[in-house]
């Protein structure tokens, strides 16, 4: 038996190809949206992977340092380092801000890292060019997504930093590329005020009789010094010794240091479940809408193609074609349309993904799922046309 659907498609190939391309672009957008979501999740996981930490010690009752602000004293790491099972404990600061280079600025997450070497928690695990930070001030390592080059001079607040190294896929949970600078510089950047603000603060302090007592020399200078320095960090990153479990190390820190400690699973659930939950819902809604629009388009096209053949279908039924043969013909056409659409969509999404400002991760699993979803949508969309075709009375082929 010849393939009626195949012959019809070959006969009207232009209609199928153009419709398939149109549908494909829609499917491409759908796949890209799914890729944006996957990219957000991956950004979160990469952030945790690259931190090199097993535990995150943050301000009590906060979801810091990524989902909420957290502030803890910068000397706390010493006592945490002495806790049982702790192999390394280092301070870290995170601050998302505009980093200026010449006339352009880039939104980036500025990470303050403590002195150490490659492999220290918080440090970029690998570089694609240049070297790690070796000086205690005014050097930076930047993700290549910032667009900065080795030797570029960046401005963060009032200070200038020279890019000495470049890294890759070091991003915040919202996809902003990271710029690593020494911890002290980062602490200053978080709280450093402009000159006018500092002068006004000094005047206020001088005018305050509690801080400017005639009989207590040196008090005013001490107060002013404390106001212009920052001794807080956002978190302490802890790497544990291999023979200890995360829970064994985390629990004593929670109890004795009165801090909140998150392990990897908890931090991942904060990032994925809370930080990007709203975005995920938004994308989910888009996916549902796009799926409905795709279904409506396929249904409309298949319905129209079937309507165009209504007299031929009546003739086919009159001359003895079985209902299932006619239904299969319509279903095959819907499936072919879906396959053309998926192929076009997959190609367009693959080529478009690198052009998006945020990371778009197209996973094979999503593609397989998308393929079967498209087929399911096509099957469902063809139901209306099949019902209509099966209702056609063969007597319509006979005049009168």
């Amino acid at each position, binding site marked *: 038996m*010849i393939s009626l659907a195949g012959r019809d498609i070959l006969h009207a190939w232009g209609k199928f190809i153009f419709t398939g391309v149109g549908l494909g672009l829609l499917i491409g957008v759908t796949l890209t949206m799914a890729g944006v979501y996957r990219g957000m999740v991956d950004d979160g996981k990469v952030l945790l992977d690259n931190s090199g930490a097993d535990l995150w010690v943050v301000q009590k009752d906060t979801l810091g340092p990524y989902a909420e602000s957290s502030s803890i004293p910068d000397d706390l790491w010493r006592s945490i380092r002495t806790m049982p099972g702790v192999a390394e404990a280092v301070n870290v600061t995170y601050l998302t801000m505009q980093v200026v280079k010449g006339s352009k600025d880039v939104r980036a997450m500025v990470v303050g890292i403590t002195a150490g070497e490659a492999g220290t928690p918080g440090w970029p695990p690998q570089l694609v060019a240049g070297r790690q930070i070796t000086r205690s001030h005014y050097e930076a390592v930047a993700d290549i997504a910032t667009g900065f080059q080795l030797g570029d001079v960046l401005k963060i607040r009032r200070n200038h930093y020279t890019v000495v190294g470049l890294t890759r896929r070091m991003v915040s949970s919202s996809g902003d590329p990271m710029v690593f600078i020494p911890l002290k510089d980062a602490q200053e950047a978080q709280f450093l005020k402009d000159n006018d603000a500092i002068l006004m603060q000094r005047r206020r302090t001088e005018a305050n009789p509690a801080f400017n007592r005639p009989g207590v020399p040196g008090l005013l200078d001490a107060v002013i010094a404390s106001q212009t320095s920052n001794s807080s960090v956002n978190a302490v990153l802890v790497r544990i010794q291999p023979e200890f479990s995360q829970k064994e190390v985390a629990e004593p820190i929670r109890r004795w240091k009165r801090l909140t400690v998150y392990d990897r699973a908890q931090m991942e659930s904060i990032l994925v479940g809370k930080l990007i939950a709203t975005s995920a819902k938004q994308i989910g809604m888009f996916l549902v809408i796009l799926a409905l629009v795709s279904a409506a388009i396929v249904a409309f096209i298949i319905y129209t193609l079937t309507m165009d053949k209504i007299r*031929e279908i009546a003739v*086919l039924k*009159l001359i*003895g074609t079985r209902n299932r043969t006619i239904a299969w013909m319509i279903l095959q056409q819907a499936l072919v349309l879906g396959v053309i659409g998926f192929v076009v969509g997959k190609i367009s999404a693959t080529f478009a993904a690198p052009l998006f400002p945020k990371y778009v991760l197209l996973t094979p699993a999503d593609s397989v799922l998308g393929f079967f979803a498209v087929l399911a949508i096509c099957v469902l969309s063809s139901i209306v046309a099949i019902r209509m075709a099966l209702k056609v*009375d063969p007597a319509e*082929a*006979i005049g*009168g």
Partner: protein
Amino acid sequence: MAGKGIHIEGLSKRYGEGDTAVLALKDVNMHVAPGEVVGLIGPSGSGKSTLLKCLGAVIDPTAGRMVLGDEVIFDGGWKVRDLRALRRDKIGFVFQAPYLIPFLDVTDNVALLPMLAGMPNDEARTRALELLTALDVQHRAKAMPSQLSGGEQQRVAIARGLVNRPPVILADEPTAPLDSVRAMAVIRILNDMAQRFQTAVIVVTHDEKIIPTFKRIYHIRDGITHEEVGEGRRFD
């Protein structure tokens, strides 16, 4: 009398129920022998199409008896379980417009029926080509319907009606869209094929040009048929 061809006794068809019921066919009797071509004529609304639909097993008669070849197909109710297979294997249709399948070439338009009946594609195409040759359209075997003239399309439609060697062909105004020369050619072909394949042919027509060619004519008016001997003129 039964035998080959098609035999109809007391066929009735009523549409609707109660006060709104319309009796479209009233006690129709008809017999067409194998190899015979008869005309079925009547004004609009006389019941021609209803009779054709009953004969074509696309609507259910209300009462009566129909014998196709040696098989009783209707006797107060359908005696055949699969009406679709009955239409496919035992009844050939030729329509006012050819209604060829636009996405199949000429050969496959004709070969589709035997393929639907389960015949292998090659065998079905061979049979289709034989018929196309008999109807003198074999040179258009690979053409698409849209590339054929009206007369060629109608010949292909006749080939399709004949391809399963049905005992009866129902032709619904097959010459309506054609000029008199082509109309006569179609009637000649139907007569030739009826003789060649011993098929009973019923031609529903309004066409004054072809009416004199029938040897027997059934007039239908208000659902009642009257048989009349026709002139049986030569087609040329």
